[in-house]
């Protein structure tokens, strides 16, 4: 009960924050991207956290989603709301195709194989210019503002859409984590042979998880496209700023927990922006160096993620209550 109140309060605060921001300003953009990256890291968390498979190729699904809805909008005038589901379907299909050969790989090998698949997707998007516009990139055409057309004058509605997306992906993550599939995934993670012997179809469960994760990531690609308005293959399929970043956000926040990716995103995205803001006038690359140092310090301080701060706090509180 207390837990639900806490969740409701956090959502209300998150919903109130944009009201105090310039509805078309810089900070609402940062806020929207923070929510979006939290949702992306949460989608990644299904594979990276529950199945414990470190995917470094999630940009493939994200890019597929961004491109699918935008191409459908440009060529056929199809609303991105529908394009989002088309992108989700293609993203899920791509996840299946990638998962079938990589699923048997463990640890570093899985990470490297998925990284390669993500890069292949980026190269294809660059080369297949008749479909994607190639390295020039795509502009989302301006539509008369309406909810149905997923087009708005201000950034404010995008912030709320990103918040809704984060809530939906988090609920999906929690339902899976707590349900039969969550038990099966934990069993596979801890001992795959034993999981098979007690009746778990390990192949099927891993494929299902990969597909769900891919579908969600692709749908979030559409949300990104509508906020970004312009993007090219090197942005939407980026290994560093998409694939590795979502993994980093989930890991810094606390992998395998629902709160982890949210904490991670609210730490990493604003801090990175702030560093760029403060130090970009100085020597080239200084902001990245400082950001890197901050990440290292955080990882040394909380190797199992920022989420462990709450555990430590709770332990201290209950200790205080006893004495």
């Amino acid at each position, binding site marked *: 009960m207390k837990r639900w109140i806490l969740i409701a309060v956090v959502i209300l605060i998150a919903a109130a924050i944009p009201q105090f921001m310039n509805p078309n300003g810089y900070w609402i953009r940062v806020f929207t991207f923070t929510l979006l990256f939290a949702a992306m890291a949460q989608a990644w968390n299904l594979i990276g956290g529950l199945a414990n498979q470190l995917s470094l190729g999630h940009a493939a699904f994200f890019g597929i989603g961004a491109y699918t809805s935008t191409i459908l909008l440009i060529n056929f005038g199809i609303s991105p709301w529908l394009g989002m589901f088309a992108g989700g379907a293609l993203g899920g299909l791509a996840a299946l195709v990638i998962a079938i050969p990589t699923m048997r790989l463990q640890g570093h090998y899985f990470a490297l194989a998925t990284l390669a698949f993500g890069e292949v997707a980026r190269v294809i998007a660059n080369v297949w210019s008749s479909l994607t516009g190639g390295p020039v990139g795509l502009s989302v055409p301006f539509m008369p503002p309406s909810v149905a057309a997923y087009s708005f004058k201000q950034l404010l509605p995008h912030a709320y859409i990103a918040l809704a997306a984060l809530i939906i992906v988090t609920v999906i993550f929690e339902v899976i984590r707590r*349900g039969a599939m969550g038990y099966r995934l*934990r*069993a596979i993670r*801890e001992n795959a042979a034993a999981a*098979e*012997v*007690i009746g778990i179809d390990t192949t099927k469960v891993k494929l299902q998880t990969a597909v769900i994760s891919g579908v969600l990531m692709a749908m979030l690609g559409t949300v990104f496209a509508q906020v970004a308005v312009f993007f090219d293959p090197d942005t939407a399929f980026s290994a560093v700023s998409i694939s590795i970043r979502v993994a980093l956000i989930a890991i810094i926040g606390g992998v395998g927990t629902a709160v982890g990716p949210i904490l991670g995103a609210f730490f990493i995205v604003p801090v990175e922006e702030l560093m760029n803001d403060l130090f970009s006038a100085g020597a080239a690359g200084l902001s990245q160096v400082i950001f890197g140092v901050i990440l290292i310090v955080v990882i040394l301080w909380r190797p199992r993620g920022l989420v462990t701060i709450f555990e430590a706090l709770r332990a201290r509180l209950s200790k205080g209550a006893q004495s």
Partner: protein
Amino acid sequence: MTILDVRGISRRFGGLQALSDVSFSVPKGQIVGLIGPNGAGKTTFFNTLCGLTRPDKGSITLDGTPIVGLKPHKVAGLGMTKTFQNVALFAESSVLDNVLTAGLLRHDVKTARERALVCLERVGLRSVADKMAGNLSFPERARVELARALCTDPKVLLLDEVMAALNPVEMQEIMDLIRQLRDDGITLLVVEHHMRAIMAICDRILVLNFGRLLADGAPREVANDPVVIEAYLGRSAEAHA
């Protein structure tokens, strides 16, 4: 009625013939002991039965269904599962979650939880249900393995040294449990090094040596079989007798 029928099973690992033309059949409700010196092929044999290892030759029929080539989860679904000799629990999950996960084979989460608690009760570990499996003692972990296997509702249960490192009281409890399971209609194949225990609970004993079935009979017959004594003790067995 035959529940498990094994015909001409062979399996080679490189230069090692781990199993060689093993055949036997088990009627429903028997407790069958599987003994043999270290490296005789007992664990390979269990792995082959439950689908973890594929035989090079031969057929296995479980309750009328041929199962060679099926994955372990299919074999579990058809009613045969095993425990792991080296204990393969989900160490970072609670004892209850370990057993509950097995119950999901045939039930939803809620029913699986109820079933898991019943299984834990049967192995005498209900009180540690909420502990993390990795924090238990070795004998306790072996019993969690047993509860977990039990929670898949097996027709045939393969137990690989569940009595290792138990004290005599605990061992007696497990022996009683094995007999109860048999009375419930479960067929059991038991690998155990503790001869007194295996002689006491088994209706029948199979002896494996170098992957071959050396003997198959009632405990008393097998214990007095000169071929078996030689396999265990070497040629100078008479001198010790």
